[in-house]
């Protein structure tokens, strides 16, 4: 599957650069979602984290992908705090491990990167689908991606399934009562609002998609 579809460091660095831009541009949007059902800082948390990544990007870009993403993850973990810090921190710290110290990955490895990253968010937050968290975007997204690969779709088309399912998953949080995170204490009052973490996760995946060759 997609053995010749190679993603090199430039691709990943470009994605991170776009995530840095996204974190600024969508800061007030994510924060607004969090104001409705949380404490109004999700966008600020991401912007604090990605500002730290931006500061070090040139330096870290010299590293292999495993080290590079571990550093990105550690930056998010150490600069952000809250829920987003450990969750996205784990995501990126794990994300590079399937690259095994290399500077490029094939599509199978690319898939595995998301697999271990999403699993590490699940492990860290212990959330399952339907609890109104980022897992509602990431898990269905990953499952759809896996299925598309099994069905033999071309790499970019397969990842498009990830993107679409993640977006749908984020939207699916709107009618939910929350079972994890700050919103959990709102009961019915959380209904009608999109989960900020699910929204940012879907936007992250979209950013990965947009840069795919």
């Amino acid at each position, binding site marked *: 599957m997609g053995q010749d579809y190679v993603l090199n460091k430039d691709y990943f660095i470009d994605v991170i650069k776009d995530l840095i831009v996204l974190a600024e541009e969508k800061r007030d949007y994510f924060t607004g979602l969090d*104001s409705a059902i949380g404490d109004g800082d999700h966008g600020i948390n991401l912007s604090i984290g990605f500002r730290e990544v931006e500061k070090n990007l040139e330096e870290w870009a010299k590293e292999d992908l495993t080290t590079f993403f571990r550093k990105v993850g550690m930056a998010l973990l150490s600069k952000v*705090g809250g829920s987003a810090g*450990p*969750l996205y*921190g784990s995501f990126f710290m794990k994300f590079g491990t399937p690259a095994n110290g290399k500077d490029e990955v094939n599509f199978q490895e690319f898939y595995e990167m998301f697999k271990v990253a999403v699993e590490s968010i699940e492990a860290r937050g212990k959330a399952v689908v339907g609890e109104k968290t980022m897992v509602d975007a990431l898990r269905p997204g990953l499952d759809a991606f896996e299925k598309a690969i099994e069905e033999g779709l071309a790499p970019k088309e397969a990842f498009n399934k990830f993107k679409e399912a993640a977006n749908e998953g984020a939207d699916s949080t709107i009618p939910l009562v929350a079972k994890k995170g700050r919103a959990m204490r709102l009961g019915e009052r959380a209904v009608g609002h999109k989960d900020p973490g699910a929204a940012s996760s879907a936007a992250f995946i979209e950013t990965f998609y947009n840069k795919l060759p």
Partner: protein
Amino acid sequence: MTMKRLINDPYDVVEEMIDGYVRAHKDYVKVLENDGRVVVSKKAPVKDKVGVIIGGGSGHEPLFLGYVGEGFADAAVIGNINTSPSPEPCYNAVKAVDAGKGCIYLYGNYAGDVMNFDMGAEMAAADGIRVETVLVTDDVVSSENIEDRRGVAGDVFVFKAAAAKADLGGDLDEVKAAAEKANANTRSMGVALSSATLPATGKPIFEMEDGDMEIGMGIHGEPGVRRGKIEPADKVIDQIMDHILADMPLESGDEVAVLVNSLGATPLIDLHICYRRVDQILEEKGVKVHRAYVGPFATSMDMAGMSVTITKLDDELKQLLDHPCDTPYLTIK
């Protein structure tokens, strides 16, 4: 509306606050050389004493760093505004204050804080340092289940009890038990009349219609139980006390500690008018107030509003709350 705040770059508020804090209170605290988010008592580590570590997001000052000092917390771990600190400073705080008797993490029950502090404790465990945790869960209306409740101004009494136990030479299990006992006997509830302003956005965290109040709101602006027009102080207190006393009934002869806490912009005049009503209600029930605090103890920056905290006391808790301490924002002789 423009934000009425005196800050520089909003992304620097926490670092500049900490810098200002250690400059102003240099006789009490220092910041760790290897971690700018850990404020440590000048006396720590204290020989043969369990290390008491408190922490959480910024924006609730004097919580948490204001209570670091002799007889109270050994260190505070400081997160971004309304955001738990990350695992590393939680761990670094342990390394800085552990005196061989282990450490206790004390903080309000928020998912983010739990994740980060737990990671800090895992890192400490890897070094062979035992770290126990007690989550403060005093906000009565935030959940039916006590263990799911948020921690708000009750932090002050729970931290104080645990810290006094540590100061009196208690071991880690005893300190933990003291914190758990204080937490089990502490209930709080608040009312917000406005939102705090987030420095990064320059905007209120949430919208509130002019003239509205929200009963039961959390200190990060988490929605409460009821929104309505601002009512007279006595009516507001009556509602708050109804909720608290329904959850933790008090009888004639009981003794309590009371904290009437400003969320930031509510002046001492109003707080004392509120305290008056709390005291009248307790007096009617024959409940004795052993100790009362009125002022800004656990705030939400410039939020208008207040909270009432009641801790039911036995002899041990009385002793622990009366135990001397000396910190920049709470001194007991």
